[in-house]
Structures are given as C-alpha cells and as structure tokens.
C-alpha cells in the first residue's frame, strides 16, 4: 500500500502524531513517555474488550462451556499468522513473567544443570531463575556481564566466551538453558537474537527468548528464529489490554510444559491445558483481536517506521538539550525506546538511589514520567516513542529532565 518513501516519519507524520491522542485515553495535558512499562490501548480496543466482557455476562454458561475456547483459538490463529508459526504452537498467558515461570517451572532441572542469563536480564526473570536455584539441588546461574554499548558482534562474542569458559571448567555441569532478551528493558537495547540462538544451540543449549517488548515493535518470524521457547507481551506494543501475552512452545517440547496453575485438563494436551485457566475475565486476552484490527488500518511497516525514526531523532534532540549522549550508537539496536544519559554530577546522590523521589517529583510537578536507571557507572533515562508523540514532545521532556537534574546537581554543591 505505501512504499518506503511514503511511510510516515517525524517530519511527515501522515496519520500519526498528536492527532492520534484522541484514539487513546490520555487526559488533557498528559503526555505518555513510558509506553514501554505498561503499554496502553486505544478506545476501539477497549470497546472490543467490553464486547467480550459483556458477552460473557449475557450467558456465562454458554460463554464458558461453548464459546470461549473457539474465541481464544481464533486469537491464537491471528497471532500465528502475525508471527509466522502454527496456531497450535501458541498459548495465551497473562504476561511475560507468567510465561517464563510456565517454562522454567515445567522443565525438570537436574543436579549439574546451569542456566545462562545476561546481567541486563529483567528482574522478575532473574528472581525466577534464582527460585529454580533455591528449590533444586546444584542448579546454578551463569551470568554474562554485559555493559552497553556493545556492537552485535561484541554481544555474541561475550556470550560465546562465557559458554566456552564454562565448558573449560570440566566440572561435570552443563548449561541447560539460556534466557536471552530480544529487547532488554533497562537499558532498552535490541539484541542480535538470531546469531545468539544459532550459536547457543550449536553448543546444545536450549534458548528461551524473552521477547516481552517485541510484538508490535519488531517483525517476528518464529519459523526463521527457531527459538526453543518464546514469550511476548501483546499489552506492551501491540495495544491490547493489560493481561494479554503469548507463549510459543514448539511441538517437540509441548508434552513437558504445563501451566503454572494445573487445571482439570491436565494431560489433555497443550492446547487444552492452556485454554482454560479457571474462572477469570478473558476479555483482556481477547482484546488482542481489537488491537490487530486497529493496527491493520495503518499497517505494521507504517507504525514501525514512524516510531523507530521518532525514537532515533527524539534521542538526538534530548541528548543535545541535556548535553549528553544516547547509549547506543547503533540505530538498529533501537526499536521504539532509547536511553539518554542524565548529566547528574554525583552518581551517589541520595535521591536517585531508588526511584521513589523521581517518580513522585516527575508525576506531581511535571505530570509526566520516564524511568531512570544506573548502567555502566552512568545514570540514564529510558524514553518510549509512539504513534501519539511528535518531536516537540521530546524537546519538552529534555527540558524537564534538564531542570530536574540541574536542581539535583545544585543540591550537591555545598
């Protein structure tokens, strides 16, 4: 429909930019710079969710006993088309944390097994691996220290080196599973997942791809990717309602994987086991249908082009205003999120050791928020671009952060 020359960009936004605000639920005066944490959804998606919610209420027995499973299956087949895999390889779950727990708590870890993770892995995943360590005998975590910026080759090389160092120990242990972020959370960096998967699998290591941020942000081809397990949140970048994620388990592993909450369908097969999660509200999962419909109006290419270019340009502008730099010099490592350094003079400033002060200060005084974090000895903020934002918004955010940091810096000068 659109050629690459007519895809929307920040200077030529087409259907995107502030005119999209009315499709969402933002109050006047509120600009959302942190889509990456919790996502948000459109009015049309909410209507779609309520349609499912109301249908359940009109006749709960008919809904649960006759209509629910086909409805869930239809969503799965839409996602399967979207991500190039089989409908029967997908299960809908609440969120990525549930998906990772589903896999990790199903796999039978044996003494001597090792789980490989990057130091930039998401905290809930780190804790889940720790739980596995705590509850099994001699199952340890192998952590690959990662300090961005690194080129794709450097990332793959670091991980391979960690694998080889482990093999050289010859202590009878084996790396059983690697958990790899496709797009890490903080810092937000797109990783070279295909080379990582190929390399790790060549050592006989199973790979769980934490793609929490991926669907709606990068194109996904699961057949090509060939991961052993994959999880992604639809409620982040796809615009479905919170509590809608999808877990990919290829057929050869399905007999091993059971839900975190065993149901009456236990041992009834993968589809049955994951279709019914007990009595709950399924309308958030079903709202994925509404999300896909909304996006079809514009097409994935248009959304991706706009958001990505806006992220790159927005990052440049904020770095200029702050007199700093963005974390990654590689544009392909940026999806829709960028990390820009905050010019704090004292990295040990008490008000930045936890997020409490900044959460309060940014929301109460400026009515906006972008999360901040330490990495590589510096202080950064992660900013999310989106179809409802324009370049001006990043100028504003840059100025706000400048003011906030100048204030904090003044406090250290006694």
């Amino acid at each position, binding site marked *: 429909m659109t050629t690459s020359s007519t895809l929307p960009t920040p200077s030529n936004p087409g259907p995107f930019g502030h005119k999209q605000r009315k499709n969402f639920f933002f*109050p006047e005066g509120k600009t959302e710079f942190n889509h990456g944490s919790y996502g948000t959804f459109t009015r049309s998606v909410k209507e779609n969710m309520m349609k499912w919610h109301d249908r359940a209420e009109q006749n709960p027995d008919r809904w649960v006993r006759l209509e629910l499973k086909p409805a869930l299956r239809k969503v799965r087949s839409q996602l399967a088309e979207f991500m190039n895999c089989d409908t029967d390889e997908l299960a809908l779950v609440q969120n990525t944390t549930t998906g990772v727990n589903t896999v990790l708590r199903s796999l039978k870890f044996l003494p001597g097994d090792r789980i490989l993770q990057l130091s930039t892995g998401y905290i809930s995943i780190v804790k889940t691996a720790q739980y596995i360590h705590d509850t099994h005998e001699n199952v340890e975590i192998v952590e690959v220290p990662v300090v961005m910026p690194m080129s794709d080759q450097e990332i793959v090389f670091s991980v391979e080196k960690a694998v080889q160092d482990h093999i050289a120990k010859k202590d009878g242990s084996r790396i059983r599973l690697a958990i790899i972020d496709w797009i890490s959370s903080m810092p937000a960096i797109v990783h070279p997942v295909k080379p990582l998967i190929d390399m790790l699998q060549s050592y006989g290591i199973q790979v769980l791809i934490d793609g929490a941020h991926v669907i709606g942000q990068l194109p996904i081809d699961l057949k090509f990717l060939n991961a052993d397990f994959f999880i992604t949140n639809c409620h982040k970048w796809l615009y479905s309602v919170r509590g809608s994620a999808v877990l990919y388990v290829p057929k050869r592993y399905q007999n091993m994987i059971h839900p*975190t909450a065993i149901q009456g369908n236990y041992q009834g097969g993968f589809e049955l086991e994951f279709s019914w999660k007990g009595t709950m509200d399924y309308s958030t999962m079903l709202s994925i249908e509404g999300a896909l419909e909304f996006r079809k109006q514009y097409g994935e290419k248009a959304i991706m082009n706009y958001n990505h270019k806006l992220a790159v340009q927005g990052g440049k502008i904020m770095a200029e205003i702050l007199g700093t730099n963005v974390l990654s010099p590689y544009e392909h490592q940026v999806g829709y999120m960028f990390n820009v350094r905050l010019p704090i003079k004292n990295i040990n400033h008490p008000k930045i050791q936890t997020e409490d002060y900044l959460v309060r200060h940014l929301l109460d005084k400026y009515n906006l928020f972008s999360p901040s974090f330490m990495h590589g000895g510096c202080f950064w903020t992660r900013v999310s671009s989106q179809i409802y934002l324009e370049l001006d918004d990043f100028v504003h955010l840059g100025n706000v952060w400048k003011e906030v940091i100048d204030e904090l810096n003044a406090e250290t000068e006694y």
Partner: protein
Amino acid sequence: MPLPTTTTDLPTVTNPGPFGHQQRKNFLFPENFTQYNHGSYGAFPKVVQDDKIAWHQHAERDIDRWMRRELRPALADIRARVAEVIHCDKDELALVTNTTVGVNTVLRSLDFQPGDRILQFSTGYMSVDKTVRYICDTIPDVQLIEVPITFPLTDQEILDKVENTVKTHQQLKDGSRIRLAMVDWISSVPSIVHPIKQLVELLQGYGILVYVDGAHSIGQVHVDLADLHPDFYITNCHKWLFSVRGSAVLYVPKHHQHLIHPTAITADYKTGFVNEFAWMGTQDYSSLMSIRSAIDFRKQHGGEDAIISYTHSLAVAGGKAVAEILGTEGVTPLKGHDHQIGNMVNIRLPIKNLNNPKVNIYLELEDFVRIGNVWKKVIDELNAE
C-alpha cells in the same frame, strides 16, 4: 403478608424483603434469562461492573501513577475489607485470580518429600485433583490417598470415613506420612456443606496440614478464620460475593508464610509474603478492585446475615419444589441436615444424572417450579427414547 416467623427480621423465601425478582434489575441478565447456575461462574451487579470499569479507566489516565504509587495501597485496602468479612489479619491474605491458582500456589510451594501422602476426598473438585496428581507425577514417592465419599452422609459419617482412612494409613507403618489434606468446605458437584470445623480439628489432631478449599464459601456461609484456623484456605470472591471474575483470596497464616511463593515468581521474591503477592506482573487489576463494591453492595442489602438467610431458605424450599415436580428427592439432605445446603441444592433426576440448580438473591420459588418443569420435560423425552 404474614409476619416473619423467625425471631429476627432476616429475609426468607416467604418474606423476601429486598430480594427476589426485584433484584434482577440490579444485575446484567437479559430479559427472559434466569440464572440457575450462579455456582459455576458467578454473576455481578451492575454497580460492581461500573466500579470495575471505573478502576480500569482510572488506571489508564495515568498508568505510571497507578502502577507505581497507587496499586499496592489499593490492593492492601481490598485485603483489609475481605479480612473484616472473614475474620483474620489482612496480612494473612493474598489476592489471586481464582481458586485453582490458589491451590497451585500452595501445593507447588510446599516442599513435598518422598514418603509424603496427600489426602483428598473423591468428591473433590477436578482441578484440585489434577493438581495433586501433578505433584505426585513430578516428585518421587508422593502419593494420593482418597477418602471414598458417596452422599447422602450425615456429618458424623463424613468425619468417620475420614478418620477411618487416616487410621488405615497409620496401620500401614510403611514410613510414609499424610502431610496435607485437601478438604472442600462446600463441594462442587454434588454441592454439600461439609462439617468443616470438625474436619479441620480432626485432621490437625493427627498432625496433618489442612488446606480448606472454600471456593464456594465466602458469601454463601459465614466464614470465621479465627475460629476455624485452617493451615491454608482459598475462596473465590467472584462466585458468591458478587465481584467480577478473576478475584479470589488465599489465606496463609503467618507461621506458614515463609514456605509459600506465587505460581509466578516476580521481582519481589524473598521480600516477604505480603510483598511477594502484592504484584503479579503487568495485568488488569480491576477485577480484584471490584471486590470492594461487591462487599458494599452486600452491606447495603443487609449484609451477609440477610443474604445468606434468604438464599439458604430459598434453596431448601426450591429443592423440595423441584423434587416434587420430578417425583424424586434431593440427593441430600437427610432429615435434619438442611445445614448441608448452602445456596445450592442437588436433586435427583429420574435418569442417572445429578443436577444442581443454584440459588441467588434474584430468584424466587416460581423459578424453581419452572426449572422443575423444564427438567421433567427433558427427562421424559430422554426416557422415551
């Protein structure tokens, strides 16, 4: 209209007060639809739905503020309100999605060892049975011991069967031990109110941990955890308490809390029971938030006493009416055992199937006459084939 014959003014089937068909307008039923199966998936009043939607909208207006600042105190408030209804400490409660999740939370946290045995009733709920079987499948030499139950049974007969099963196991002297018992407060199908306090005492007397599956209990019977002191307890608010689906409460007394972790470990792992269960990852918390307006709705209509009085008396009378029409009888209760009926009644169909119409405040006796006639027609047709 006759004056109430009870010593209190609580509503009954003959004196419904604010209940009966006049309640239908408060719910979301379409015209001509009568809900006889509240027990499976629950239903909620319009005000509770509106409240859920209001929370949903509130979150969207400033999602970072909601998730990072407001959510935990809001959920703590919900726990406090439920704690008031069921008489326990709010920090002994965790909000979870439903009973099956609550059962999995405990069973998959307890560190079962080879030689452990798990006791359950043959009438236990299917998901619970499967979860126990999963534990047995995944940990060596952990086995299931089943108490065979066929109703009708008196309370004493139920207790005797359980005690006999425990004693029989003791006599094996094979080094195994019954570690945990799963006990229904109100079983699902058939639905029978069990003598739960005596069961808890009996089993704890043998050193067995007791997990009370109270899926159907809150809102249907009076729950007093301070009196019951089970080792674990789970109940669905979205069944009989009128909250929106996906809202249940797990009780873990302080002395067991260090053992129990969520089915999905989060960033708060090992920071304490309350914290670990406060955040369940990114999801829609509006169903849990709706518990507040559900409790408020019930308070406005006379509270637990009034509601339980009406629905119980209607179940008893309704059961009799249907049984008469069908020419059968209730599967239970036996004479003098009306207390085994909560809001659900089981009537034998004159074919070998169990049916149990379930009762609620929006129903009246004539609804039972109607369903009795519907079943009569269905069964007559089947019998003629």
